[in-house]
């Protein structure tokens, strides 16, 4: 399970209201919702989001339990989020909707916006292509990988129940 993409960097405490403001929570079309991802801090995000990998500081996704936050990122084309640490509800939600999340303390200071990186979820290795940088993150436990492999908990449940 490898993902590659261009880095979009953000700082600490990127909260769910920044990721998707509350006023858009009544939208049921996720593609429509994704157009507003991160608009509070970065209006250009939806243009740049496709095939990106977010590299963030501490406490990414703090705040609300709205699953629309990882969904908005996923539908905006974000491949994976790497952060020094995640808020716990966001972390669970991301796995459950099939957005890979990786906790890594050290990569943040080694990369710049726009760098191309590759993330291997199984081994936990993060490679900055063109820069010869290789960082080891904690690999995800098997049950989380199983969920991600199916594209989310719902797909996994469907498979298990034969639907």
């Amino acid at each position: 399970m490898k993902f590659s993409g261009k880095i979009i960097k953000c700082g600490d405490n990127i909260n769910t209201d920044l990721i998707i403001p509350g006023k858009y929570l009544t939208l049921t079309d996720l593609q429509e919702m994704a157009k507003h991802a991160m608009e509070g801090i970065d209006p250009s995000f939806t243009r740049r989001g496709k095939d990106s990998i977010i590299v963030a500081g501490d406490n990414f996704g703090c705040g609300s339990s709205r699953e629309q936050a990882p969904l908005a990122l996923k539908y905006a084309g974000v491949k994976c989020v790497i952060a020094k640490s995640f808020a716990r509800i966001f972390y669970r939600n991301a796995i459950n909707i099939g957005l890979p999340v990786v906790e890594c303390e050290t990569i943040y200071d080694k990369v710049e916006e726009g760098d191309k990186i590759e993330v291997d979820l199984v081994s936990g290795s993060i490679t900055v292509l063109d820069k010869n940088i290789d960082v080891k993150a904690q690999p995800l436990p098997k049950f989380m990988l199983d969920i991600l492999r199916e594209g989310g908990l719902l797909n996994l449940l469907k498979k298990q129940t034969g639907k």
Partner: protein
Amino acid sequence: MKMNVLEKILANSSSKREVVAGEIVEANIDCAMVNEITGHLTIKYLEELGAERVWDPEKIVMVLDHTIPAANVEAAELHKIMRRFAKAHNIRFFYDVGFGGIAHQVMVEKGHVVPGNVIVGADSHTCTYGALGAFATGIGSTEMAAVFVRGKLWFKVPKVIRINVKGNFREYVTAKDLFLNIASMLGENGANYRGLEFRGPTISDMSISERMTLCNMAIEVGAKTGIVEADDKTLAYLKGRVNKSFQIIKGDNDNSYEHSLEIDVTSLQPLIACPSSVANVKPVSEVEGVEVDQVFIGSCTNGRLEDLRIVAKILEGKRVKSGTRLVIVPASQEVYLEALKEGLIETFIASGAIVANPTCGACYGGHIGVLASDEVCVSTTNRNFIGRMGSPKSKVYLASPATAAASAIEGKIKDPTTLRWSS
């Protein structure tokens, strides 16, 4: 082995004799709550799954609370989805417009929360229920779909930070100020993945309403949940509200904590969280004089009867400063009715406040008091993230109901403990 109260609840609910922090357990869920913002996704997922039945319709609580009554077609559609599902699945505890209020208040006052329970809600402030000695935490819509089908969910047993509180509050210094003090000590993610256990003589003296304010804000420092061990006050509160049986669970003590904070509230001053972080805390006296466009009093944090009583006491016979708007929203229909009977609502309206029906509304920038760019709001809610209550260019200060009321009268941020000597 010694276990703290959260470990004991999780051990019980996963049929284990003991659990340790870090261990993953699968717990039986005693009650599961959704609101319309998260619930419509859960319902959609259940339909995709082809789930014909929920695990236990009596253990599911559905509340419409974010946009009450519906302010636009989109919100109305979400309400409709919820209504249909509740009917189709015989969900008895469905709180429609007019019958409930903000979910967290409704869950507690309608007796859905009892000590020792494991409760999940598809809303981050589900941690509020720790005020009654339950383990309660927020989850997302997909996991909720899994809970609706299976009635179980995995949890990592959290490490626990114990917060020991002693001393008596000065007049107009409240549980909200105490929590803001804790937030400034721990920081915005200082309790990430942890549980917070509040204890000590001050907590024992607190009402359930005040304990709810504390536990409600546990998530604001990243905590999985907050909890206060159930005691006589809890039992007194539950009397007449609950008809399910329960058991009071108490922790063993001392060594089952990651670390402790010791706080004495005797000299605590009113505090305020400045834009745009709950941990950006200053004494109110230091930011006095900042001009305020709107004051909002309400939410699952501070929209209860006791909060409204303090506000009425301060507003009595006074007028909201012209140029400042005061919006007051009781947390539930029950709170609203009680406030009406006590004459609080009359005091509010006479002072120039707008009183609206229970709804999350202003708290998340939805409706009833949305902020324009560059506007300043003093709010009794729990989050002042950029854009939380409206324009990304608005500024939100979080404070207690007393500070909010005092600021409404002055039209500027005002320390309530010095109010009586002013003007």
